[in-house]
């Protein structure tokens, strides 16, 4: 506990560095997954390559990926950008199938009705399909968020600053409090972000949080 009190500034800067990697990776994977998931759902021949391909991404062990990526994209080994890109790929592996599923399971009667009202294809996608896919997408984003927050720590092995550095540093120097602080903060961060996503969901998807039809509602 004493170590924690003495090193609050270290903990804060590690937490900040952690978020600086995790948040862009989560955002990028969601933003990229929407068009990819749409393609997988829209064109049958693309479905299998996209879904299998994104699934395979997840099978690549993270450490080798962190090591190989800088060679491919020409960044330094300790550049946080490597981790952001690698985690975006993992996020895609989870999100692309989620988007494709969400779009495939939309109520076809509602979409038909939107067409009959005179929605053009682009407007329908952004104002009907996407919002209605919202609850399923949110579930996917929550998984990606927790998974990403946790995976960021692996970068510490390469010396990229994050809460993971607290494990490696604490382990090497035999400071148990530092290791424990690292684990606790990572878990707290994941929980916090998850709660935040749920709250955002309530604001953005208000119709999913209404009390259902009042009892005895007449015609």
């Amino acid at each position, binding site marked *: 506990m004493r170590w924690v009190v003495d090193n609050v500034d270290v903990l804060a800067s590690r937490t900040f560095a952690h978020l600086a990697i995790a948040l862009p990776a989560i955002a990028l994977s969601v933003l990229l997954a929407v068009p990819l998931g749409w393609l997988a759902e829209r064109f049958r021949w693309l479905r299998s390559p996209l879904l299998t391909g994104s699934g395979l991404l997840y099978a690549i062990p993270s450490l080798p990926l962190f090591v190989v990526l800088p060679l491919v994209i020409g960044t330094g080994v300790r550049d946080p950008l490597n981790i952001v890109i690698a985690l975006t790929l993992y996020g895609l592996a989870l999100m692309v199938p989620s988007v494709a599923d969400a779009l495939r399971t939309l109520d076809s009667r509602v979409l038909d009705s939107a*067409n009959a009202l005179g929605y053009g294809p682009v407007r329908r996608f952004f104002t009907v399909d996407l919002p209605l896919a919202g609850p399923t997408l949110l579930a996917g984003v929550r998984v990606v968020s927790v998974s990403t927050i946790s995976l960021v720590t692996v970068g510490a092995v390469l010396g990229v600053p994050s809460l993971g550095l607290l494990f490696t540093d604490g382990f090497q120097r035999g400071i148990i409090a530092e290791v424990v602080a690292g684990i606790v903060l990572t878990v707290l961060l994941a929980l916090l972000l998850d709660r935040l996503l749920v709250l955002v969901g309530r604001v953005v998807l208000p*119709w999913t949080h209404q009390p259902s039809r009042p009892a005895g509602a007449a015609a």
Partner: protein
Amino acid sequence: MIEFENVAKHYPDGTVAVADFSARLPAHTTTVLVGSSGCGKTTLLRMVNRMVDPTSGRVLIDGEDVATQDPVKLRRRIGYVMQHAGLLPHRKVIDNIATVPMLNGVSRADAHSRALDLMDLVGLDPKLAKRYPSQLSGGQQQRVGVARGLASDPNILLMDEPFGAVDPLVRRDLQQELLRVQSELGKTIVFVTHDIDEALLLGDQIIILAQGGEVAQRGTGTEILTTPADAFVSQFLGIDHGGRALHPQSSSTGATILVDGYGRAAGILSGALPGHTTGTQP
């Protein structure tokens, strides 16, 4: 006026939804397309707003071929009411009703005030405006569907079994409401149903369809009831076994009830019980 000129709809798998159908639907009247499932009635309805394009033949609105018009723009000027209302679950009642005017570029404030007027027209409490569709009963949702279909003040209203999913009491209410609204607005309504009683109640013109969009008979309700064209129509009307021929019969309470050919009590003889003239069933 809507005209169907020898329209056909074939699907790639060889299914013939409509073989060869022609009809004239006069403006400001209600035409009911009635038939069992598979008779192509919904397919025909959906040809009017290009939700389905015919394989051959033409559909004309006031002499203009719909095939020459942009489907999205065409749909925005034709009201459409479907079974299960088809409301957008993520939008409030008032936004659902205001959808088409807003797609047409009407300001939000104007579209909302129009939506409130329409809620009044179809008998919906304005307090429901801020609810989501899932918070309404089936009958209320269907009323919202009708209000939405009328929102852009279209000349044409397409109704695809709009009252098929609500219970009989509510359906009767909605039918009466539609008759009232239609007497005020005089739209050109195309109404699809499999319920012959609904057709007889609502249709100025009734077109009875057999499989593949073949016209079994067309005419007013009276014409069809009094001179059914063939055995199929008689069977469809339920008059083949005397289903619509009513015979008086004395009941144990002393009143005279009318019984149809199936032995089903169809109503009470009006006047037999003074003051009870509303007991007849449709």
